[in-house]
């Protein structure tokens, strides 16, 4: 109390002292260094973890991939094994035997087995189509967007051409003409057809990113154009690319089912979800709902899971998204 009664002089001195101490502390401790270093991916993972649907989706997709890889090994599929049925057209779901929990088809084969074995083709088509299409799309888009000029013109006109050809028509004709129902051929055909949309996206991203100052700065350091294209710009464009890749995966899984349903896809002796749907169509009127229902659900849930993952990634990888 006595202190405050004094005129401003000592108070002034005190303040100056406090300021001095604060300045000293700031100088020695260097608070910026004290922060934990998180890179772009760690921050993205932090945001992704908060997206519950995306977490459920990733869990579901992981399990589906595990089923696809391990399932057929544990439960070998024998196309010639036709156990026979008690009900004409197929037995309904039952707990006895437990493998018929999803019912059977007209020959008494377990629908559960169909779902497990079919997962292999559906998931493989989704994943590998995504890989091929993303690789082509990113390469074409990056070269067009970064180089610009004539190369851009040629590549983008080619993309226009690809987009102008009726997509379904090409898939059906190519699948019939080259395939013979081989899953690998189908994947290659899908991969070669799914990239143009992505390449346009990548080109647009590059057109804006190449004008960024850090690109100019990298060039001023003497970094080569190829390295700038793929090492400096690509990581900055990865967010939208990853999101778009998940959409390609979902699209490819649906398209495979759809093409197989039309009997243009996987050969009838192989098991895929689309084939199961296709084979069951004659028995639907008899009330055999379980035969298309379970493979159809597996397909739908996988696609939804992939879309949730895409959604979560979009939020997580957008640098402007708020914590």
């Amino acid at each position, binding site marked *: 109390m006595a202190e405050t009664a004094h005129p401003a002089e000592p108070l002034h001195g005190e303040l100056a002292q406090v300021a001095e101490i604060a300045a000293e502390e700031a100088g020695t401790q260097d608070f910026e260094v004290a922060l934990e*270093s998180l890179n772009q991916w760690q921050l993205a993972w932090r945001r992704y973890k908060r997206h519950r649907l995306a977490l459920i989706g990733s869990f579901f997709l992981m399990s589906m991939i595990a089923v696809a890889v391990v399932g057929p090994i544990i439960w070998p599929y024998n196309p010639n094994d036709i156990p026979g049925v008690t009900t004409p057209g197929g037995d309904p779901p039952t707990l006895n035997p437990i493998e018929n929990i999803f019912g059977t088809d007209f020959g008494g084969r377990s629908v559960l087995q169909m779902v497990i074995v079919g997962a292999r083709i559906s998931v493989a088509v989704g994943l590998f189509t995504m890989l091929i299409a993303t690789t082509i799309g990113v390469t074409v888009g990056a070269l067009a967007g970064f180089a610009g000029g004539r190369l851009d013109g040629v590549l983008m006109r080619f993309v226009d051409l690809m987009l102008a050809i009726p997509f379904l028509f090409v898939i059906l004709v190519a699948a019939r003409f080259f395939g013979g129902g081989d899953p690998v051929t189908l994947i290659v055909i899908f991969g070669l057809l799914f990239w143009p949309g992505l390449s346009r996206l990548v080109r647009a991203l590059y057109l804006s990113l190449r004008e960024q100052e850090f690109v100019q700065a990298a060039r*001023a*350091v003497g970094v080569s154009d190829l390295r700038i294209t793929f090492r400096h710009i690509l990581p900055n464009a990865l967010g939208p690319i990853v999101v778009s890749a998940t959409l390609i995966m979902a699209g490819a899984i649906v398209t495979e089912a759809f093409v197989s349903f039309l009997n243009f896809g996987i050969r009838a002796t192989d098991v895929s979800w689309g084939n199961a749907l296709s084979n069951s169509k004659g028995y639907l009127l008899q009330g055999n709902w379980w035969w298309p229902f379970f493979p159809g659900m597996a397909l739908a849930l996988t696609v939804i899971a992939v879309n949730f993952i895409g959604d979560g990634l979009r939020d997580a990888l957008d640098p402007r998204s708020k914590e």
Partner: protein
Amino acid sequence: MSSVITATAAPAAAPNLPPPADTLLEVRDLRTYFHVMDGTVRAVDGVSYSIKRGQTLGIVGESGCGKSVTALTVMRLLDIPPAEIASGSVWFKGRDLLTYTDEQMRLVRGNEISMIFQEPMTSLNPVYTIGDQISEGVVLHQKLSKKAGLEKAIESLRLVGINNPERRVKQYPHEMSGGMRQRAMIAMALSCDPDLIIADEPTTALDVTIQAQILELIRKVQDETGAALMLITHDLGVVAETVQDVVVMYAGRVVEQGSVDEVLLAPKHPYTEGLIESIPSKGKRGQRLNVIKGTVANPFNLPKGCNFMPRCPYAFDPCPAHDPRIGDASPPDVACWLYTRAPGAGPPPKLRPRVPALEVGPS
């Protein structure tokens, strides 16, 4: 040296000889045009200047006068097209950079000439650590291992006065303040021990207290490394404190050049004079600041005679018709008819009273 001359087949009238050995960079009659939809912009139109080893040169002028474009032309960082280097030569260490292939030029960039950009916030790649970005140039040019590159990065960061460089190299740009990032940019520019550092408005995006520190730092590292410095700025205060020689540009031309004392204390060209008069100073307290009336010349439609004529308070007979070039005048470091007799014109009017010289002080 002589082989270079025969290879470039310089016109006999003005042989394009390499400059003397102590000249690090000599830009001669450089013309950089941009061909855009509305026509051609002569962004740099016949600019010449030179820097000796270890010296500092300031390039001053308003926005759009072509000062950055000259630097980007020297670095060959412009996209061609729309840009075109219409004529001129850029002699660097006795060789003409404009004759280099892209690959040769890439080895010069960052290694022998490096650049500090205006915006420290956007000039660093957000997805890589500071250490990665500083070491990239060293790894590229000096063929060091990644580990040795990182060591070098730490060393450079220490040189630019960053505390705790061992931890800083692992940080991302978004974890640093603007001043820190500009220090990191300077560290990047220094990492390969370049002969020439081009600083394009290095302090414009920083606040005033940091500006002074960064200028001090640039001066210090330049002293220590012996590199030459080309400082591009619109801030005459920065020029006064930092450089030895000045080039004043207006509408793609050099209008005046000389040592910093000559140009700032006794400006000859009316434009330089206008720039100096428009700086607030203690002596002008309570008065309205002088401004240069009018706006920067429209690059698509430059005046026929002197580019500065429409804004010049001293314009007289020859100015609308004849275009003054630096070197025409009797003191060869100013492009103005006030100092020489234009072809077919009378003598210049009596020189007007001088403006008070720039008060150099803390800005």
